[in-house]
């Protein structure tokens, strides 16, 4: 399922004195199979955008019987695979099964008495009448995919787990419905450095094997550089850049002028540039090290 979005605009509290234009003519395509990153300041429109992807925020034309566009309004296109999100006829219920959404700090949403009940909750809601055995198997598979041993944790209270484990249980509760696209808002935020690394490794395991496409919102530029195929930069409701990390992080001046960070490798590359050394790498640590060592070999 590709995500195709053209001319998407969204205004919060439209018509009130508090009206805020959160998205301003956004056009963005995310292809099936990508590990896509979304970058931008708080308030840049990132979250508003991702909430459109499974219809948590719905376009006016998908809600009203006969939607009359305002004068001069460009009608947006928003398609997720076969689903046309501008249409009233769209089955949003089944769309939400296909597009899994993991919010920030998803562990705050854990509620059930046992891990297995918590993970099963979404599944039971989406698949009415699913048998007990099937549920059990699906929950076990989802927990295993998230790096947890069902035998060990299934009967535990989710509140007795560590922070990193809780987060993985919360992710299991979303992937249990086998979404094709998994969207995660700041999946690693607030964890300690090892917990962060575990969650990112988990997403890589899921990518391809479990979910075809992964979209992450992140403030951590190293995370984007190390993991993403492409990333879009949001600023004041607009997409100002959408590039693979290799090209994106060459535009350091633009990123810094937007008040955004750059990855550590980009910082070292800049410092090397000032010393007359150009390193052309994809801004991952491994590639940087390889390129530096190759450069030295060439010079000898």
């Amino acid at each position, binding site marked *: 399922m590709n995500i195709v979005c053209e001319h998407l605009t969204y205004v919060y509290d439209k018509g009130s004195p508090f009206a805020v234009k959160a998205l301003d003519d956004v056009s963005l395509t995310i292809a099936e199979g990508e590990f896509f990153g979304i970058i931008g300041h708080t308030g840049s429109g990132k979250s508003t955008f991702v909430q459109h992807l499974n219809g948590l925020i719905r376009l006016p034309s998908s809600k009203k019987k006969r939607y009359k566009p305002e004068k001069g309004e460009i009608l947006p296109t928003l398609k997720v695979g076969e689903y046309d999100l501008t249409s009233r006829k769209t089955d949003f219920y089944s769309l939400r099964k296909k597009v899994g959404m993991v919010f920030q*700090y998803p562990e705050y949403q854990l509620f059930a008495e046992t891990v297995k009940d918590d993970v099963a909750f979404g599944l039971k809601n989406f698949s009415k009448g699913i048998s007990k055995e099937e549920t059990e198997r699906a929950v076990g598979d989802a927990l295993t995919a998230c790096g947890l041993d069902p035998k060990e944790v299934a009967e535990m209270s989710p509140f007795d787990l560590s922070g990193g484990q809780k987060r993985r249980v919360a992710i299991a509760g979303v992937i249990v419905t086998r979404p094709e696209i998994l969207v995660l808002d700041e999946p690693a935020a607030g964890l*300690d450095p090892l917990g962060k690394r575990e969650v990112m490794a988990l997403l890589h395991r899921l990518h391809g094997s479990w979910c075809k496409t992964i979209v992450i919102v992140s*403030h951590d530029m190293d995370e984007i550089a190390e993991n993403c195929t492409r990333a879009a930069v949001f600023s004041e409701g607009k997409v100002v850049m959408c590039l693979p990390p290799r090209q994106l992080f060459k535009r350091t001046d633009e990123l810094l002028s937007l008040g955004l960070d750059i990855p550590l*490798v980009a910082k070292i590359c800049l410092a*090397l540039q000032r*010393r007359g*050394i150009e390193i052309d790498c994809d801004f991952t640590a491994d590639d940087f090290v390889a390129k530096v060592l190759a450069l030295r070999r060439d010079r000898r």
Partner: protein
Amino acid sequence: MHAIETKDVSFSYEGGGFRIAHLDLTVEEGEFLAVLGHNGSGKSTLARLLNGILVPDSGTIRVFGTPLDDQHLYEVRKQVGVVFQNPDNQTVASIVEDDVAFGAENVGLPREEIAKRVEFALGAVGMLGLRNAVVSRLSGGQKQRVAIAGVLALKPRVMILDESTAMLDPRGRREIVEVVKKLNREEKITVILITHFMEEALLADRAVVMNRGEIALTDTPAGIFARHEELLTYNLALPRIGVIAKKLTEGGLRVRDTLDPEQLAEDIARSVRR
């Protein structure tokens, strides 16, 4: 005088959860201390013990010489302010200045004194311009500054920040770090900063690493991040830049172990040119 002094402090949660074990920690007045440690190492428990939210099973805690016990609890709490992780859990009023005044009102200060302190606290965190703003409409960084101001209005001598920047974006994080640095420097407030971010820990005079409820390491922040093997033992990640330097060294390049990108670039440049 020691701002904080704990002697042989132990604590365990009901049901046997993790704990603090025989902890001896001294923090000097005016010091800026960073506390590191993986999740579950006891950092937050320590923060909660130091202003009496939790009571130790054994051992003593002294704050500026005053023992933290039933008799002195409220006195000590006025001196030790804590700012927690989630900005949304720390505001009580809907308007910024009312929220900042809340703590000061609770300790029964006269009206004029409260007004003065709110003014001072909002000024210190750079939020005077937003004193009449609605708290729920602020950014995360602004909300955390309001939380800090609320603590400041009580004129504490020690401020504990328990992962107060963990939920903020990089801009919000910078805002908080700036404010904390300024309070330490200008108001001479003793700061205990619990964090997972290396850049923040590097601002401290001294850092400790906690592991299983004990202080496992004490050093300068840069000194701690250079101790790679020990960091791994205590389930802490190596600094990214250290990993890169190590890989370059393994590849035969002569670079120093540093936390500064400039310095690493300097070494690479020299090594490549030779």
